[in-house]
């Protein structure tokens, strides 16, 4: 199966062209430019968009706007090309890139998204960091807090901190209707929160 995978949930977007498990190419860019990378990957691979058989998209959690961009790309491509879509959590893809590590994505406002059994949003000091290796831009941002709590964070420039689309492709299982692939926000909008 020839698939294109991408994730725009964090500041560094990732994309990969994967053919039956073989990674033909992987690139990183800004979320708004990820289609440039997708285009480059296809051209380098000598592949036309119409030959794609599946789309894999990172569903967050991360920047709300970034997550939505990825899903809008995926759903539009699915409509246009008539191919199915699979969604993969950004945290799960991070974890797949560093087996055993705790994936942590910066959620801004002094909080992080973390996948510890389940995906949740919490303050860095509430993450069970002790004795764990932490990866992701949230791990880098709150390195001091996590290290104080007995956690270990890979060096800042370690690529384990970045989502890599090859792992999204690897984790993708159920391909189906694009609209069934939903964004993972983990937070309700502030305006709603004020009412509940």
């Amino acid at each position, binding site marked *: 199966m020839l698939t294109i995978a991408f994730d725009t949930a964090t500041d560094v977007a990732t994309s990969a062209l994967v053919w039956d498990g073989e990674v033909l190419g992987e690139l990183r860019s800004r979320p708004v430019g990820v289609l440039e990378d997708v285009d480059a990957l296809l051209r380098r691979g000598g592949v036309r968009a119409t030959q794609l058989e599946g789309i894999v998209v990172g569903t967050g959690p991360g920047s709300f706007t970034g997550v939505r961009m990825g899903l809008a790309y995926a759903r539009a491509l699915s409509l246009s090309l008539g191919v199915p879509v699979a969604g993969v959590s950004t945290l799960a893809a991070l974890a797949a890139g560093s087996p055993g590590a705790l994936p942590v994505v910066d959620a801004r406002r002094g909080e992080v998204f973390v996948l510890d059994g389940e995906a949740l949003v919490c303050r860095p000091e509430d993450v069970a960091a002790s004795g764990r290796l932490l990866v992701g831009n949230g791990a880098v941002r709150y390195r001091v807090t996590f290290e104080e709590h007995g956690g270990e964070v890979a060096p800042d420039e370690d690529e384990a901190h970045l989502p890599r689309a090859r792992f999204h492709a690897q984790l993708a299982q159920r391909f189906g209707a694009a*609209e069934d692939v939903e964004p993972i926000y983990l937070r309700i909008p502030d*305006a709603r929160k004020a009412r509940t």
Partner: protein
Amino acid sequence: MILGIETSCDETAAAIVTRAGEIGSNVVASQAELHAEFGGVVPEIASRRHLELVLPVVRRALDDAGTSLDEVELVAVTRGPGLVGALLVGVSAAKALAWSRRLPLAPVDHLDGHVASLYLEPHPFEPPFVCLLASGGHTSLLDVRSHSSTRVLGRTLDDAVGEAFDKGARLLGLGYPGGAAIDALAREGDPGAFEFPVARVPGLDFSFSGVKTSLLYAVRKLSAEELDRRRADLAASYQRALVRALVERTEAAAELIGAERVAVVGGVAANSELRASLPWARAAPLPLCTDNAAMIASAARWVEALPYPRYLALDAYASAA
């Protein structure tokens, strides 16, 4: 065929328009109900809804026009101004649709879109003219010289007039969106009952924050019972003040540049008193007053389209340059 997509505020819209300006379809999914409980558009809630609606709306626009993506030659999308998070949903979908088919993409300015609502069949209104753009997001006077050349003569210094309608409706305990609610209630009231002076600012600019404050004071002075009794008078007087300000400035603009023809576009162009107060002006057809994608596709006919792959990193912008 041109496929237009619009997601700048709280309407998710897609349309099919031909190069000649015939509307094949014009689908608008309004989110007004979703935002009603907040009395205004909540950007994050709007953006989430746009993502849910944008592809279904595109699919319906194609179906309604009896066409398919295979017939589309150009994708047009609102790039700004508006809510960036909301705009990016439409821009991303448009980029992906265009890229997958190697189509060109026309990034359209939302204000040009409103003006281009006048250029659609069956009764196109052609430049030159002076155009009043009055909506929830904008209040501007434009000198429209040609399809692709527009100069801003004046704009609001604070609230947009549509916002002034919404805020007034909230003060009067009416629903959202407020324009339609005030328009309906005003018919039962006396527009001369209250004096709500609109601030006169120099030049051709507008200011609506003062008139909103005078409505607030008037409402505060009344007991709950009196307010109930005089609500229609308040609505009528408030609407009269807003419309008068729009009409005066529009006439002044036309006189200043010697324009013989005047047009009114945008959501507030649907207001019955405004339409009646400018009987000689051309008002946009009612279905094209509020935000829609037919006007975006229409404007795209005079925009330099970006060929594949130059639009792949296209971003949205929040405010006018």
